[in-house]
């Protein structure tokens, strides 16, 4: 539910990082926080459990600068990935404008990726939103693990599993090292902003 403030000429947009537990959603936000320190005026908010896993959400407000004369404020959120936290995931999705799906490239996580996409579809549907219509980008994370000899899913397999019907942009990435983290973010911002523009025409 983006909000356009005509008085301040400001647009507020909500982007949610979704995906299975331990996939690197929070790591994405942490990398962005460190990389764009100068544009982020506040601390990153994280509601975590003892084991350092996201309990409710992480929140990072991010100033995009001006687009067509409007100040764009992007609010980045993550959700808890663990299956049992479905109610909390649904809460965070309220009013979402764009989604980054962070998939785990490890072979052992193949099924949890697929289940999580299905879960995203179901939870969007509770807000009468379609996964086929919402701005969405896939990020195949943890590609750096290939160097450690950990078996990874191939890009083609992941595309086939997750993106064969959706056909949205996807990136291989390493949130830990920062590879393609910014590229993913830029892509979802572009898609979200052009969707908003269309809505106004």
């Amino acid at each position, binding site marked *: 539910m*983006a909000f356009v403030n005509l008085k301040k000429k400001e647009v507020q947009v909500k982007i949610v990082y979704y995906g299975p537990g331990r996939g690197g959603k929070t790591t994405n936000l942490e990398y962005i926080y460190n990389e764009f320190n100068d544009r982020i005026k506040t601390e990153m908010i994280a509601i975590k459990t003892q084991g350092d896993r996201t309990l409710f959400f992480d*929140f990072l407000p991010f100033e995009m600068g001006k687009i067509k004369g409007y100040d764009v404020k992007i609010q980045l959120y993550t959700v808890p990935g663990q299956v049992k936290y479905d109610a909390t995931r649904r809460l965070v999705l309220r009013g979402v404008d764009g989604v980054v799906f962070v998939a785990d490239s490890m072979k052992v996580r193949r099924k949890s990726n697929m289940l999580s996409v299905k879960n995203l579809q179901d939870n969007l549907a509770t807000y009468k939103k379609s996964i086929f219509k919402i701005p969405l980008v896939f990020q195949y994370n943890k590609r750096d693990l290939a160097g450690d000899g950990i078996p990874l899913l191939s890009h083609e397999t992941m595309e086939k599993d997750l993106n064969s019907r959706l056909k949205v942009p996807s990136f291989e990435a390493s949130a830990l090292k920062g590879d393609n983290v910014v590229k993913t973010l830029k892509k979802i911002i572009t898609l979200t902003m052009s969707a908003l523009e269309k809505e106004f025409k």
Partner: protein
Amino acid sequence: MTYVLGQEQLDAIEEVLEDDFMDMGVRCVFLIDMAGNVIASQDSGKMQHDIYSLAALAAGNFGAVSTMAKIIGEDEFSLLFHKGKKESIHFSKVMKDFLLITIFDQDVSLGFLRLKVSEAINEITGILDQQMSP
């Protein structure tokens, strides 16, 4: 769904916030939507709270408490109050999609605040209603 508020509506909302709350000594008052966006805010100038983070947490908090309400068979809890040693926070729902949040200290009486909140909600509802009806 994207919604737009123009200069006129936002001026009117800010005026309600200022008239109803600043005179009575409230530190900070702001209107947000359930997605966590900040619509309008006023503060006494004495404190610099990070209202964007507060808004995100408040929307999440309100959502969590509403889910709790459903579990015990209530539709919702339409207002919440968190008491601190020096500062307290009061949340109240405005229409279906908005929240009015006030931060105040011990000098403000909770009863009086609640009265002012309900007055302000009526006024804000009037302003937003015109905007939201297609």
